[in-house]
């Protein structure tokens, strides 16, 4: 008896919950990571799971336009943005480690605490009678959002802040697909275009900051310089 007989929707719910948990684990791994290239790759892996969640919801809820969202996530966040950032890292010759303001063990524990907050907030949205997928996914989405914010505050370098912003955006995407099973396609297209443009603009901005200040450490951006 390897496979229990399950309703389709329950199976879908399980798969989504499992992948949402993996996404959350990767988010916490990102908080604990010191090397920027690995950080970028973890972000790519997280986005890959997100694309798989979108595809799963599309399959079990018969929402074909979510396949487009999944494919776009795959192209933009798993392939384009990581390549863009790795090239940026190579061009700027960043070799030093990420130095967060709060030390890493404490950051990880804080990330755990923020996840609890996410779960508590999501629990108030929980309705046993409401049909559908992924109540756990909402909790994970809120946690991603909070941890993303925390990571942005916690990092000195502009590039890692951009990565945190993108993982925060992953949380928004997860919340959107787990609550609504897909917004209208045109909205999603807009969002993806936004993300791509934001990543490019921020990439250029990071490069400019470095050109001007000889560092991407934003805590040095206090002085005005003509």
């Amino acid at each position, binding site marked *: 008896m390897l496979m229990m007989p399950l309703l389709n929707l329950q199976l879908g719910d*399980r798969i989504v919950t*499992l992948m949402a948990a*993996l996404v959350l684990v990767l988010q*916490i791994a990102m908080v604990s990571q010191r090397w920027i290239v690995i950080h970028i790759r973890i972000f790519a892996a997280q986005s890959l799971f997100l694309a798989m969640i979108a595809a799963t919801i599309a399959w079990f809820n018969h929402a074909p336009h979510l396949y487009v969202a999944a494919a776009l996530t795959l192209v933009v966040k798993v392939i384009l943005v990581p390549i863009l950032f790795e090239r940026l890292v190579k061009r700027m010759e960043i070799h030093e480690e990420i130095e967060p303001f709060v030390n890493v*063990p404490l950051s*990880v524990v804080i990330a755990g605490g923020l996840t609890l907050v996410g*779960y508590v907030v999501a629990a108030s949205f929980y309705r046993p009678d409401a049909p559908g997928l992924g109540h756990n996914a909402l909790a994970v989405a809120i946690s991603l959002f909070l941890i993303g914010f925390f990571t942005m505050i916690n990092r000195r370098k502009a590039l890692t802040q951009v990565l945190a912003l993108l993982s925060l955006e992953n949380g928004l995407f997860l919340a959107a697909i787990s609550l609504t099973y897909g917004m209208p396609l045109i909205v999603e297209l807009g969002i993806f275009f936004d993300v791509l443009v934001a990543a490019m603009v921020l990439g250029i901005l990071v490069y400019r900051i470095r050109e001007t200040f000889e560092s991407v450490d934003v805590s040095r951006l206090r002085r005005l310089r003509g």
Partner: protein
Amino acid sequence: MTERMMIRLIENAAQLFLLLALAPLVTGVIRTLKARLQTRRGPGILQPYRDLRKLFRKGMVIPETASWIFAATPWVVFFSTLLAGLMIPMVAAEAPLGLFGGVLAVIYLLGLGRFFLALSGLDSGSSFGGLGSSREMTISALAEPAMMLAIFTVAIGAGSTGLTEIAGAAIGQNWRFLAPAQMFAFAALALVLIAETGRIPVDNPDTHLELTMIHEAMILEYSGPYLALIEWAVSIKQLVLMTLLINCFWPIGLQPTWFGFGALQGIGWLLAKLLFLSCAIVLLETVNAKMRLFRVPELLAVAFTLGSLALVSTFLF
């Protein structure tokens, strides 16, 4: 009364034999696999047995400054580990000494062994020993809470901290480990396993380099039969922790009791799962470099966070 007692005795003897015989083999398999993965020939999977035989035949050097703790430690470590091994379900969910204590007893029996090892490291008076003891205690103080949280997550599912009940509740739920809470707990316990058995990102079991060694520094003064006892106990501890991880999270093939033909099937599954876990450990050891000591708390903080998430998510969802 007698028949029941006889069965109990046979169970105990069988598990005792399995622990004593299998533990060096697991160590040997891990070493050989690792050597092969690094394109070395390796010493062969039976080498730990040969090492033990050689050490038992040798004489001993005992430091002049050492007290009775130095002589008592190998025995305490060996028997506390063995006792912990008899309390965990290996082949069947029913642990031979399961009635004497649950998972807390297992953890603290292993803790007793570690405590004595740390004492003996200090006792010999060598500076390396003290250094190893302090490192070992630092790591274990961080690993223990994570381990507790992960174990409690599993215990809540079974409604008991008895390992017989925990393993019994897991039987038949072969896909349960895919639930998020179980997965968090599994990840936390796997990280703790690496830290507790002194595997590579935390400690390197193959080196005597003074900057990096943790466990080896504590037992540096031991030689001959005492060293053999400690080495044997360490490999049994590794087997115990691996079995705990396997039987709590992958209950496929675990038998409810030891009876008859089922026991053979149970042993087969146990060996297969141990081999799988060994391969995973070997892969992890080969692709990772050893961490600096001050980075180890980061790894264990991740384990702790995963453990607490596991515990909380069982309550909330």
